[in-house]
């Protein structure tokens, strides 16, 4: 025991670190900050350390080359002992990190912790969030599979829309004129050197400010932040009602750190690593790329925005959002901290959470994507075929054969890009059906050039049957009048 303390003293005489470490550990924090609400910052740091460790381990096997990245991931998954587990830890760690960073940010926002004097802590935190998202995207690129390849194409398409510098930005991003080996190498440099280096630096700054400025006290409704008096009040609070950070508050952080590592490991064991999906071969075009979980909302948004809104939303939206986050502490640097007295703050968070949740949920079944195999794979429900004429059956074949089903569902099978057609006959008359098929419109292509008159007649006669048994098909009242005047004309179906 004496030997150990002697060795310790030998080192500390040279390093002189014991005193500052003790000072940090024992700095007094307000008692009420030792709460389960205050654990997410340290949780994010814990996952970040896990990401560094697992990332270094993966880099021992991974080859950042367009030709070999995919197969090196396959060896990690299947050949290297526990390679699959390290990949799974890194992949799940990434998901957890994005989630915890977001939760941490929401908590800080709702507790008013961004207000004076912690403005810069918040701003550094915004950059940490952006870097975390940058790590998530570049990490998906390093999993160099079909999704990564086409995902890069989507990134390039978005970047190219920036005025004036767009095309140059694309070449800079891709490291050349196309997505290829140089693209992967450059994202490797970003993911492994540039962003992590910045992240480590910014995390240190962030922590330094947390220690120097003190942990944000529990917000009390009515206790307003004033620049003139806040620091003295906070000092008073830690003196009167404070406790040393270690061990008073830190035990909760430690429990959460262990819990989060356990949760990541459990997900890694149970669900396994992410991909890689198909080989990144641009000549295999039978693929529908999807982004990783945290970018799914963006995938949904891009399909639901009107086309004219898309470029402005893509290019101006992020700039406005980031500018707002950076300016927030200057817009409301003083005043009420408690979320109980900040209804707009709470509603903003709820609105964002519901929007992101809804968009993510929608991207789970992508109603905007045509089902590419429905035309050949999905059966026409019996009820629409029973008792049909030869012409109507022919129409059902046209319906399937011309890929209508890829966008229009029948009996819930098929695409949802266009409206479901189970009861289309109650909405459109024969004339309207013909017009819609031939001329398209309302986001439907015109089929006039691709259907013969006979095919159109058959198709429309099939579509006219698509109505529930207890509901009459739509009819054109003016036509009834015309027909009553010329009795020999073919009469429309009566209800």
């Amino acid at each position, binding site marked *: 025991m004496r030997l150990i303390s002697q060795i310790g003293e030998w080192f500390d005489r040279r390093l002189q670190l014991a005193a500052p470490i003790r000072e940090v550990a024992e700095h007094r924090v307000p008692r009420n900050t030792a709460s389960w609400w205050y654990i997410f910052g340290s949780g994010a740091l814990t996952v970040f350390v896990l990401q560094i460790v697992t990332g270094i381990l993966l880099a021992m096997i991974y080859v950042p080359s367009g030709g070999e990245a995919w197969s090196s991931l396959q060896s990690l998954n299947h050949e290297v002992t526990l390679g699959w587990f390290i990949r799974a830890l890194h992949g799940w760690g990434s998901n957890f990190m994005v989630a915890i960073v977001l939760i941490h940010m929401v908590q800080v926002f709702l507790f008013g912790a961004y207000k004076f004097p912690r403005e810069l802590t918040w701003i550094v935190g915004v950059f940490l969030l952006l870097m975390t998202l940058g790590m998530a995207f570049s990490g998906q690129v390093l999993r160099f599979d079909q999704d990564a390849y086409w995902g890069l194409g989507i990134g390039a398409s978005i970047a190219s829309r920036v005025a004036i510098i767009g095309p140059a930005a694309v070449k800079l991003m891709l490291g050349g004129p196309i997505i290829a080996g140089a693209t992967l190498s450059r994202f490797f440099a970003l993911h492994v050197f540039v962003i992590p280096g910045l992240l480590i630096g910014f995390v240190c700054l962030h922590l330094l400010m947390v220690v120097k400025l003190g942990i944000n006290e529990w917000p009390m409704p009515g206790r307003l932040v004033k620049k003139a008096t806040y620091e003295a009040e906070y000092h008073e609070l830690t003196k009167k009602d404070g406790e040393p950070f270690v061990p008073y508050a830190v035990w909760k952080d430690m429990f959460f750190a262990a819990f989060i590592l356990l949760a990541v490991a459990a997900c890694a064991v149970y669900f396994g690593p992410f991909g890689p999906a198909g080989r990144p071969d641009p000549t295999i075009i039978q693929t529908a790329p999807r982004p990783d979980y945290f970018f799914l909302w963006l995938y949904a948004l891009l399909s639901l925005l009107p086309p004219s809104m898309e470029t402005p939303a893509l290019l101006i939206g992020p700039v406005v959002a980031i500018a707002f986050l950076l300016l927030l502490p200057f817009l409301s640097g003083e005043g009420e901290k408690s979320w109980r007295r900040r209804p707009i703050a709470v509603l903003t968070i709820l609105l964002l959470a519901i929007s992101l949740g809804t968009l993510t949920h929608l991207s789970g079944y992508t109603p905007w994507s*045509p089902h590419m195999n429905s035309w050949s794979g999905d059966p026409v429900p019996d009820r629409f075929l029973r008792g049909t004429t030869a012409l109507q059956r022919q129409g059902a074949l046209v319906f399937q054969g011309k890929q209508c089903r890829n966008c229009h569902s029948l009996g819930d099978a098929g695409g949802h890009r266009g409206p479901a057609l189970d009861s289309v006959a109650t909405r459109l008359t024969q004339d309207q059906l013909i017009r819609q098929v031939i001329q398209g419109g309302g986001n439907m292509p015109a089929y006039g050039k691709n259907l013969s008159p006979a095919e159109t007649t058959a198709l429309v006669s099939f579509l006219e049957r698509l109505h529930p048994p207890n509901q009459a098909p739509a009819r054109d009242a003016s036509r009834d009048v015309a027909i009553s005047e010329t009795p020999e004309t073919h009469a429309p179906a009566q209800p």
Partner: protein
Amino acid sequence: MSNDNTLSRRGLLMKLGILFNGIVATAIAVPIVRFLLSSITRGPANSYLAWVTLGSVAEFPEGETRLATFRNPNAMPTDGKTIDTACWVRRVAGDQFQVFAVNCAHLGCPVRWFPQSGLFMCPCHGGAYYRDGSRASGPPERGLFEYPNKVQNGLVTIQAGELPTPGSPTAALLGKKPPCA
């Protein structure tokens, strides 16, 4: 010790030191920046583009649209499979061809050709195009990107080498503009 008006020897040496470092840093920064921007600044405009062969005319039946692949003119040894690119070749009649990029004009996903309905459909956000590449429906704001093509010695060749994206200057020259609504 120096006051505001005089410059001590040490002070002058430090300032000279800063100046010297500044000159050296600039001298090193120039090649670093040129290296970083090399993928943009490479040679004259469109220097990535070159004529590549897709195959003989006979491989493409008249009136049909077929998938073809070509090797990128700017190959790097680490490209692997990404060196190849696919494109849709439509032989209109005789030596008249249309060669479309597989990349959707919306966000670049690979579009698929459905000969039965004469449509290209995109699996991502549901963009659709007619057989001549013009926009049919969905989020794209324009028709498919088209490579310039010519028939030489019975071979179909196209001018390629750059990823077609909505904002690229080559894309602005090529392909169908959206039809008047």
